[in-house]
């Protein structure tokens, strides 16, 4: 009897020790698509976030407390994201959360976090309404419109070209890019000679390619992700079209170069990650990411990494578990992260310069930087 009680007592005691060790951890929620159509980006985002966490914890955590990531798969679907947001807030009691997911789910979750007064940072979702959910919601990446305008400046000013064929991916990402690009096209006097749309499921662009050859543009502005842009660029080149192709952060993955092969050479994109950056933060991220995940770094991973770093810095400077104080700390962030110098405007939108990368010898390399605060001004209150 006594022996059993003794064992029981020890077990319960150990349980308490474990529980109390847990209680000291600072929990951060993370919703990310691990299954479904966005699973590839989801995996990159999770790897990027976990790397940031590991780096923070191994250098002493937040004032001695360890960070803990509570990860749920939202399938990039708003239907899954809403209960997940509530679970994170109520069951897991997270102090703040980061979205490693697409716009639909992030938008739906943002409302819940705002209502409960839990700070929420969107790593790479582009829907303009996300930050409009309220003052607890931030974004560390560009909204589509800003990047679209940057693309227009790149074509009109940096490259000095005029006649553009626009190929738009039909989803929220492509649509907001196209809207921003058209605004920019007017400013920089570009002439849009033709416009095509495709669906995220398309991989064969034969008809569009044929038509573009007949259009004879100076340059092609095509929105998409690496899995649509890879086939598109290789099919354009195979048909003998050799004008520059301008893409965006959706291309930003080594996988794009794997798919398009030699045809990818010379493709230029606007993005958040500069591989040849002199910033120690960026170089360190690129090297550590390759080591920890066995993958080449991409924009999504860097963005998730940045979002966690921003949150950690805010937790550090707030020095409390009061969510209002943490929110205020995020709002006044001044941080050099893997995706550049981060600060937020009054709406919680990031203000930073746009990196331009080009494919050279099968690698993403530095091309130029677009640093034009007026043109790149994110939407504000």
């Amino acid at each position, binding site marked *: 009897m006594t022996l059993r009680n003794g064992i029981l007592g020890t077990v319960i005691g150990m349980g308490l020790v474990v529980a109390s060790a847990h209680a000291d951890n600072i929990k951060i929620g993370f919703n990310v698509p691990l*299954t479904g159509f966005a699973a590839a980006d989801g995996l990159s985002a999770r790897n990027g976030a976990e790397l940031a966490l590991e780096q923070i914890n191994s250098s002493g955590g937040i004032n001695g407390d360890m960070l803990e990531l509570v990860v749920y798969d939202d399938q990039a679907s708003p239907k899954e994201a809403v209960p997940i947001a509530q679970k994170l807030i109520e069951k897991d009691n997270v102090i703040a959360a980061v979205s490693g997911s697409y716009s639909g789910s992030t938008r739906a979750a943002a409302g819940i976090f705002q209502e409960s007064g839990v700070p929420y940072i969107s790593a790479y979702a582009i829907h303009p309404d996300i930050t409009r959910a309220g003052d607890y919601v931030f974004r560390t990446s560009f909204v589509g419109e800003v990047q679209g305008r940057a693309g227009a400046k790149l074509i009109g000013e940096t490259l000095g070209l005029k006649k553009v064929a626009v190929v738009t991916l039909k989803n929220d990402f492509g649509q907001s890019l196209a809207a921003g690009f058209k605004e920019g096209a007017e400013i920089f006097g570009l002439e849009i000679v033709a416009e095509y749309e495709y669906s995220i499921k398309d991989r064969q662009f034969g008809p569009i390619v044929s038509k573009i050859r007949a259009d004879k543009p100076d340059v092609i502005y095509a929105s998409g992700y690496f899995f649509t842009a890879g086939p598109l660029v290789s099919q354009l080149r195979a048909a003998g079209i050799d004008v520059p192709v301008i893409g965006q952060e959706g291309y930003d993955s080594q996988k794009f170069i794997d798919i398009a092969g030699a045809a990818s050479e010379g493709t230029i994109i606007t993005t958040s990650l500069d591989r040849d950056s002199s910033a120690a933060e960026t170089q360190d991220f690129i090297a550590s990411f390759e080591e920890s995940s066995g993958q080449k770094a991409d924009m999504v991973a860097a963005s998730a990494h940045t979002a966690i770093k921003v949150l950690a810095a805010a937790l550090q400077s707030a020095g409390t578990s009061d969510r209002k104080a943490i929110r205020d700390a995020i709002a006044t962030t001044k941080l050099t992260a893997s995706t550049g110098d981060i600060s937020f405007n009054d709406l919680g939108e990031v203000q930073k310069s746009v990196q331009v990368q080009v494919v050279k010898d099968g690698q993403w390399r530095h091309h130029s930087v677009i640093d034009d605060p007026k043109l790149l001004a994110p939407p504000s209150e």
Partner: protein
Amino acid sequence: MLYLELLFQGIVQGSIYALIALGLTLVYGLLRILHVAHAALFTLGGYVGVIVTNATGSFTLAMVVAMITVGLIGVLTYKLAYEPLLDKPPFIALIASIALFIAAEEVFRIVFGPYGLSYAQPPLQGGFEIINGFFLKYAEALVICISVVMLLLLGWFSAYTRLGVSWRATVTDPDMARAFGVNIQNVRYLNFFVGSALAAVAGVLVALLNNLVEPTMGSVASYKALAIIVLGGLGSIRGTLIASMALGVIESFGTIYIGHLLDRDALAFGFLIIVLMVRPQGLLGSK
């Protein structure tokens, strides 16, 4: 010239549709099952093609290996999934097939990773100019050639071999065929083997055209192929061929001229609905 090119692009797309949809028609004609999981076999074909090509460097070998493995897995699918459901209402097999398809997509993602695979050294790159400005890519030429060869082979097989004749007999009238001593079971195995092998060919070719195989590669094929066989008149091989080509060409022109109004899928299904309202039994169906 542009019209000619668009027509040609439509035929390339149509050939791929045809290779995929034929297997579906064969299954439907014989068993009255809407075999959605067929699209997973198409994806599997793509994976086998890329993996074998990258491992051995031989594209031809990859094609053969893909056809055989996927063909056998097709037979297995019939044996394990459909055979026990033949006497159940048709939507049972349909839901089972959809479940199988989703499960297969997940298995592809877990086993091969979410980023997809590409040929390390994609074969048959480049192309040639036929007349001024009209480019033909080697890969596209191959798609059309292989489709034509496969279809001719299929035609010869069903018309001139003993097995082929008993196959056609079974499709037309299973009871009569059995009475004449045809082994129905073998015909079904053959049916699934041939249909799945054709899907594998399509998978290898699409992987070549895109230089990418992803877990979700079959998602478009899963429903588009259903639309095609229904359009063709369910179970009619000739109807399926015509419907495949018609859809390929309509999508090709539609993408350019009405793409800003409707996307590819909506275009295809809009066409389907119009045809069915006029001819409820499909283009070549009989009722």
